[in-house]
């Protein structure tokens, strides 16, 4: 094996072990109590998985996105919230790695992510713009003579906000900048005042612990990611979010399928040779799952290929359309698979305390369509479809 292949295999292997041994045993409790999956995150830190994507020259593992995607799938399979926390953290790291401008403050910060295994949260959505990531209301203030600036942002949903070490926040570049003229700022918890708004008692993805906050920060301007946010968003944040989120959703749907399969096998053992209608439904379910798996796998390969060899194409509208479609398709197909799994298992799937329970899977997967509303993405795509050629 090449060194990268070895690193990648280790990243996926340790995520699988943590998913099975650490995340799975407490997944129900994390869900029931809407509590942070602290054990899984601690285990990922111990394996230095939080810096998997940091390049070797900055001390990181230099793992591929392919490997991190595999890790998201493995974690999502055992605990959707753990998978989503891991995915969201990796998205923030990828943005800094790809857009830091070499030799900037971010080189040192990424070394710190490696050494201290910092957990980084995201503040992109905003009260007033909702899920429109391409617009901000909050702005970076005019820096003072010492180069210190500040912002205040009303954030409706900040996953693991109470547990993160740092936050990547989108804001307008300056007080007089247009809503779409944005930058991303990395601030440490110590540089922030995080005033929690309300509670977090949602339908699913309960362990992500994502209440609202008023986020205030004061920071040196070197902590603004050098490339502008429109580039970060097109080349990394949007496609990588869609690629990694969809791996988590695929993981959740795969476990729902596995539970339906275990149910059918158990039924077949009880009455060998007798006709088993649920077995036919299971077979139908498998084809639903394969559609999801195909879409998610294809998009991952396309992203890795373009990112490695043809990065400029990531900004083309035809490419943006395909990664937007991945999000819409996967976020609709994953809950469909979970719901059909419920149909296979029947009442023992509906109950929350059997080996065949799929209620958590169904609830977790239903968050997918809201994580940037599908309706909003459809509106964007409807406009892009008018002009893009080969999609």
């Amino acid at each position, binding site marked *: 094996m090449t060194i990268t292949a070895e690193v990648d295999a280790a990243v996926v292997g340790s995520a699988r072990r943590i998913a099975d041994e650490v995340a799975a045993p407490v997944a129900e409790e994390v869900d029931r109590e809407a509590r942070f999956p602290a054990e899984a995150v601690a285990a990922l830190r111990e394996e230095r998985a939080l810096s998997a994507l940091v390049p070797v020259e900055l001390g990181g593992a230099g793992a591929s996105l392919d490997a991190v995607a595999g890790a998201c799938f493995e974690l999502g399979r055992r605990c959707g919230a753990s998978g989503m926390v891991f995915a969201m953290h990796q998205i923030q790291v990828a943005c800094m790695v790809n857009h830091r401008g070499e030799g900037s403050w971010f080189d040192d910060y990424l070394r710190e992510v490696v050494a201290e295994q910092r957990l980084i949260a995201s503040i992109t959505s905003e009260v007033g713009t909702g899920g429109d990531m*391409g*617009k901000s209301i909050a702005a970076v203030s005019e820096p003072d003579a010492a180069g210190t600036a500040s912002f205040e942002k009303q954030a409706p949903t900040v996953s693991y906000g109470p547990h993160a070490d740092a936050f990547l926040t989108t804001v307008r570049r300056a007080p007089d*900048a*247009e809503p*779409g*003229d944005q930058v991303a700022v990395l601030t440490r918890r110590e540089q922030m005042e995080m005033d929690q708004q309300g509670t977090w008692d949602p339908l699913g993805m309960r362990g992500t612990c994502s209440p609202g906050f008023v986020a205030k920060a004061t920071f040196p301007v070197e902590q603004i990611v050098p490339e502008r946010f*429109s580039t970060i968003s*097109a080349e990394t944040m949007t496609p990588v979010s869609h690629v990694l989120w969809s791996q988590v959703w695929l993981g959740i749907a795969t476990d729902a399928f596995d539970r339906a399969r275990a149910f059918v096998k158990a039924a077949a053992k009880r009455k060998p040779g007798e006709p088993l209608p649920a077995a036919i439904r299971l077979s139908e379910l498998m084809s639903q799952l394969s559609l999801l798996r195909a879409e998610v796998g294809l998009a991952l390969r396309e992203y890795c290929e373009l990112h490695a060899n043809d990065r*400029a*194409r990531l*900004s*083309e*509208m*035809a490419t943006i359309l395909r990664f937007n479609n991945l999000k819409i398709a996967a976020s609709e197909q994953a809950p469909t698979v979970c719901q059909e799994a419920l149909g296979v298992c029947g009442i023992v799937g509906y109950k929350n305390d059997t080996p065949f329970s799929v209620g958590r899977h169904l609830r977790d997967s239903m968050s997918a369509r809201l994580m940037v509303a599908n309706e909003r993405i459809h509106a*964007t795509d409807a*406009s*892009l479809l*008018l*002009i*893009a*050629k*080969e999609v």
Partner: protein
Amino acid sequence: MKEQIREVIREHGRLAVDVDTLADDADLYQAGMTSHASVNVMIALEDSFDIEFLDSMLKRSVFESVDSIAAALTEVGVPA
């Protein structure tokens, strides 16, 4: 050609300022053009110049300024 480009931007760009106050290399997005408006600009440019952009041109950076739009139009054969 640049006057014709400005005409299209004036009609479809929904800028926060008058396009005539902007230099040829000024950033249209910073002047308030949204992604949605930029798509309308692209469609109107195809119509006005009777050309089709290639997929490789259909990205934010190509529609960033009057200059960059002019360069793209030249590339698809519009005489300067």
